[in-house]
């Protein structure tokens, strides 16, 4: 398993295509281990900025190209997850957990879950961001347990792997 700080997952250092003019600021923030979200000032309202992911050249709500960036809290919950037992590439060691994490800001990220036995993750588990550093100075956000599971998110037997 990975180190408890979540910063150096074993052997997980994939090749990631270079950013483009749209995604550059998002990746630049990862160099400082900051998780940012693209926001639309025109659509912002209420308690939260109107955030979207992945970054795009326009706002998918209003079409505006005048978009900004905001730091995400870096916390959320597991929306869905799956334990991968057959790697799609030789550089990946199985098993590992692929997940959709719903951030507190409402945005869903595809990511990995770490620092817990793969089969123990459940929908609704709270998570917080950690970072897998890449050789080029960028980093990939991964997620680790955010708090002890509350009774409301206790494991449900039907989603336990391998039963």
């Amino acid at each position: 398993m990975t180190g408890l700080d979540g910063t150096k997952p074993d052997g997980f250092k994939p090749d990631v295509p270079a950013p483009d003019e749209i995604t550059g600021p998002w990746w630049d923030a990862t160099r400082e281990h900051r998780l940012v979200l693209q926001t639309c000032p025109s659509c912002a309202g209420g308690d939260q900025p109107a955030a979207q992911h992945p970054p795009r050249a326009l706002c998918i709500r209003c079409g505006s190209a005048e978009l900004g960036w905001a730091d995400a809290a870096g916390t959320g919950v597991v929306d869905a997850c799956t334990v991968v037992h057959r790697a799609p590439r030789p550089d990946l060691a199985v098993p590992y957990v692929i997940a959709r994490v719903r951030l507190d800001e409402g945005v869903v990220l595809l990511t990995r879950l770490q620092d817990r036995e793969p089969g123990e993750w459940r929908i609704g588990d709270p998570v917080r961001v950690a970072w897998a550093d890449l050789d080029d100075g960028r980093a990939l956000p991964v997620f680790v347990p955010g708090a002890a599971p509350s009774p409301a998110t206790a494991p449900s037997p039907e989603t336990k792997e391998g039963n």
Partner: protein
Amino acid sequence: MSTGVAIVGAAECDLGVTNRSILGLQAQAVSRALADAGLTLRDVDGIATTGVARFSATQLADYFGIEPRWTDSTYAGGSVYEMFVARAAQAIQAGQAETVVITFASNQRSARSRSLGGVVEDHTPEAQFETPYGPLFPLSYYAMAAQQYLHKYGKTREQLAEIAVAAREWALLNPAAFRYGKGPLTAADVLGAPMISSPLTALDSCLVTDGGGAVVLTSLERARDLRRTPVEVLGYGERTTNTSMTAVPDLTVTGAAGSGADAFARAGVTPADIDVVQVYDSFTITVALTLEGLGFCGEGEALDRIAGGRIRPGGDFPLNTSGGGLSYCHPGQFGILLLVEAVRQLRGEAGDRQVPGARLAVAHGTGGILSTHATVVLGVDG
């Protein structure tokens, strides 16, 4: 209601492990479907296909030595053949083409061209934000949908496995099926198969085979002069929802709802009227989500609807009567073979697996990661 367009020919190419080329298999499929219709390549003025090359329809037209008046090479994964039926019907109605061939073939098993990671172009957002983590494409997405589904509705993997078990029962009646003669499956077999991306095992997942097929469409008026019973295109609909694994808010709700509603409304029928159902079964979960989307049952009810042998041979809800992508054939894009089986059932040619008196059929394709959804309602005169 009818679009005034009918399927007049249908055929498979060789299936399984063929050691043939893609174009060789395409030629088989098209030649056989045209022969079935009593037509020749000279009659064809419209071609719809994908998976041949970058210029798929163009390539195939050149290969067949024809200059079509209408082509379509829309790439939308395995559902596109149902989309092609809609577009071909419109082209024939509009007078742009008279005889359209829809076809697909793949040699993915012989050529070992299938990759668990799928194909993700470097310039897409997915290449930067999803592929690096190593999701199986498309399998891990369906796995997460299955996890959400079982969690949300309190269902079990055993209940889900019935979809694979029933598909095998049908395949045992279909001599063309990859698993023909391979014996029945049990839910325990499905659960005990190697886990690929939890909760889906190898037996929750479709085959990887060569294969393909073709269907021929023309006006209903012309169809009445041809040798086969015309299978009328009664309705169609489609939805396109996502390429990324994060766009859809609830993985248990798919575009099948919209595509099905459009198709049934156009046909003037309801799910209760349908005699035989062909639904894309890339994975067991695909079927459960699709049946709910199409309205064959309510949300969370699919695994009860299919239980108790109802979708097996002899059951009152005959589903995927070829054996499906799970036990018959899955050449990477299964949608063409959903149409072929629907046609055979409606023409009463399905042999041991014939659904008695089938007059109305649905074929529903799903492409990508529950990305594209297309429904076709087909019928023959009663």
